């Protein structure tokens, strides 16, 4: 639906496609590669039409080897290109971990800036789609633990495009995790209700041209006084819906970038509310929530009126049939909010 010459309603997939299109048009160094991304346009359609428009030298299918996809991207970056490789599912990024952790993340440091790795690794992540063990994982905590890598996770089409453009323009390696549950519409966690599209959502109004959402800046989804809720990706929408249903005056912060983190926004909010809840899909132990909790405790200790709580995936592999028992949905979030507010 075209509403304006400069602003269109887009799904998250369309916004990502638009970001790639804009960047490929602006910068001849940008190349897109990955399994099924070329002729076919990607299993989620994120790269649809790009090969036809920019040619096979800039958008191409790859062999099924994540080591190769990332290793080759590092080499292309060293040559002077700006690669945007796709890993089909975040669950399949592990074969490339050595290339990402030992190479991409360290290249600038170990060569004292002689060589850099200006690539953006796009990968669908997160659960809520009956993806079972290997189509649902949220491995962001693995990457936030690696010095030299930036980790970015959007929650709206507007942010997805603006953040992806910033990531591609950034001269450091960026892991760009796309919450596939909200590719085609926001998800409030009520899996038993009909799926909603992006139509009518303010975050779905996306400029057709070039714009940036800066890395390292959180977004206040909803200002509030009662407690601070830190979240990102799909969980932003689950939290937003739960808070609305409860009528609690929570300040919801969508982190958007995990590294570098917008610590000022977090600190300002928790010092104001005195309470903090952290919500993520990823498993609990050593998840990114642990880092957030530690930072809040270190920086806001004398302002805290209740222990910092975490609602996360359980410390199990992601189950298939028991998905909704596993997923940190509205019931679990509401219970945690009640607990924090009673303390």
């Amino acid at each position, binding site marked *: 639906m075209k509403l304006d010459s400069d602003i269109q309603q887009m799904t998250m997939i369309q916004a990502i496609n638009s970001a790639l299109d804009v960047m490929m048009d602006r910068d001849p160094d940008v190349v897109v590669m990955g399994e099924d991304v070329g002729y076919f346009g990607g299993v989620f359609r994120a790269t649809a039409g790009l090969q036809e428009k920019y040619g096979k030298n800039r958008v191409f299918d*790859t062999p099924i080897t994540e080591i190769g996809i990332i290793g080759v991207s590092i080499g292309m970056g060293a040559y002077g*290109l700006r690669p945007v490789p796709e890993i089909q599912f975040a669950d399949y990024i592990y074969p490339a971990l050595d290339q990402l952790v030992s190479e991409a993340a360290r290249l*600038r*440091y170990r060569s*004292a800036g002689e060589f850099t790795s200006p690539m953006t690794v796009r990968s669908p992540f997160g659960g809520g789609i009956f993806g079972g063990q290997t189509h649902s994982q949220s491995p962001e905590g693995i990457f936030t633990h690696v010095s030299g890598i930036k980790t970015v996770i959007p929650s709206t089409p507007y942010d997805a495009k603006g953040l992806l453009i910033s990531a591609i323009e950034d001269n450091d390696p960026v892991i760009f995790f796309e919450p596939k549950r909200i590719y085609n519409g926001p998800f409030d966690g009520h899996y038993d209700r009909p799926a909603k599209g992006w139509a009518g959502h303010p975050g779905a109004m996306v400029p057709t041209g070039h714009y940036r959402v800066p890395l390292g800046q959180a977004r206040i989804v909803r200002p509030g006084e009662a407690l601070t809720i830190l979240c990102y990706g799909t969980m932003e929408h689950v939290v937003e819906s739960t808070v609305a249903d409860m009528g609690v005056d929570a300040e919801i912060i969508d982190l958007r970038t995990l590294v570098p983190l917008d610590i000022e926004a977090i600190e300002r909010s928790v010092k104001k509310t005195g309470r903090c809840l952290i919500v993520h899909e990823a498993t609990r132990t050593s998840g990114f929530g642990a880092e957030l909790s530690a930072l809040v405790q270190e920086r806001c200790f004398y302002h805290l009126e209740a222990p910092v709580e975490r609602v996360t995936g359980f410390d199990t592999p992601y189950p298939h049939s028991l998905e909704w028992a596993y997923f940190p949905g509205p019931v679990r979030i509401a219970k945690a909010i009640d607990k924090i507010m009673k303390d």
Partner: protein
Amino acid sequence: MSDQRLPGIGQDGGGRNLQPLRLHVPEPQFRPGDVADYSDFDIPAADAAPRPDETAHPGSMQQLAYGLVRVLDDEGAAVGAWDPHLPAEALLKMLRAMALTRAFDTRMFRAQRQGKTSFYMKSTGEEAVSIAAATALARDDMCFPSYRQQGILIARGWSIVDMMNQIYSNKGDRLKGRQLPVMFSARDAGFFSISGNLTTQYPQAVGWAMASAARGDTRIAATWCGEGSTAEGDFHSACTFASVYRAPVIMNIVNNQWAISSFSGFAGAEATTFAARALGYGIAGLRVDGNDALAVYAATRWAADRARANAGPTLIEHFTYRTEGHSTSDDPSAYRSADEGSHWPLGDPIARLMQHCIRLGIWDEERQAAMDKELAEQVRDAAREAEKNGILGHGLHHPMETMFEDVFEDMPWHLREQQQQMLDEAKAAGL
């Protein structure tokens, strides 16, 4: 409960009378205390290998993947189709770079033993593999080396003081003391930053070559790994990518027989050659006498011409011998026969090139001895120069706060905080 076999299945069940299976665990020919005997070692004649056209189909080159490209015969004569017919000046230049590399290795090994640095790795016996290859490439072709190709930098005329500064991690070290000694990086010499993680450079070299091709450039990439490292998954990924996109890349395998204490059998050498791996990928494969500088030069030149003709990648196995220990942290007498190196049937690369030059009448032993003395003095003087910038552990390193630079292009808040914390702690401790 201890016997969980199903009824009727097992050694004596099911009515079968089969030999028990056996696991084959490779064992090298010689261990400490053994006398190395290579009398059954089959060395192909120097003129035995045919030289196909640079655009030959990989499938037609099977003989080259299992044979051995050689140019220098036992008398030091250059023979056969692969003789590159290099002018005297080029031969002597290679000889000098090889001798300089060996002198450099000797000096830096001693520096480690003297406690001036933490670590060193020699390339003794493998000088031809890096120097002859670098000589056959264009200066602006990009090299993705492993940690035993310091000869590339020397062949390209890189400052040995600069290399020593890196080894000493001193204030002159361009890498700011962040990297283990020998993990050089020299962009201006077309020498990619060395990583400790094995074979990661292989797909990176392929990617660089793909980028060059996609851009319509004329530069090519070359990469090196040891035979042990071919077992890494990156090797397979790189070969697949190189083949699929016909990347203009030369992939060198330095088969020096040893991966620390593991002989080449643990990388699969008992069953095939490393060059033959190329065949399954549809890549041109050459197996080369790695101690024959002219063979290494000729094979590299062939592969470079092939790449520049858009005929695709080449995999070159350089058959050589790691004469010294793996590193200053290694004692090879604990796992291999002490006299293997001296009995190695393909000899010493420097001695063989010298013999060739003498035979051509462009060199003699006196000039060689004078050159060796001159090079020893050159590296001694360079080491003194580098030591003015400091040696490891003597305080002449880069300022502490530089530890936090270059993690990212711009330093984020958490690194700034940690940097400040470190400086405060150091100040409080009176440092």
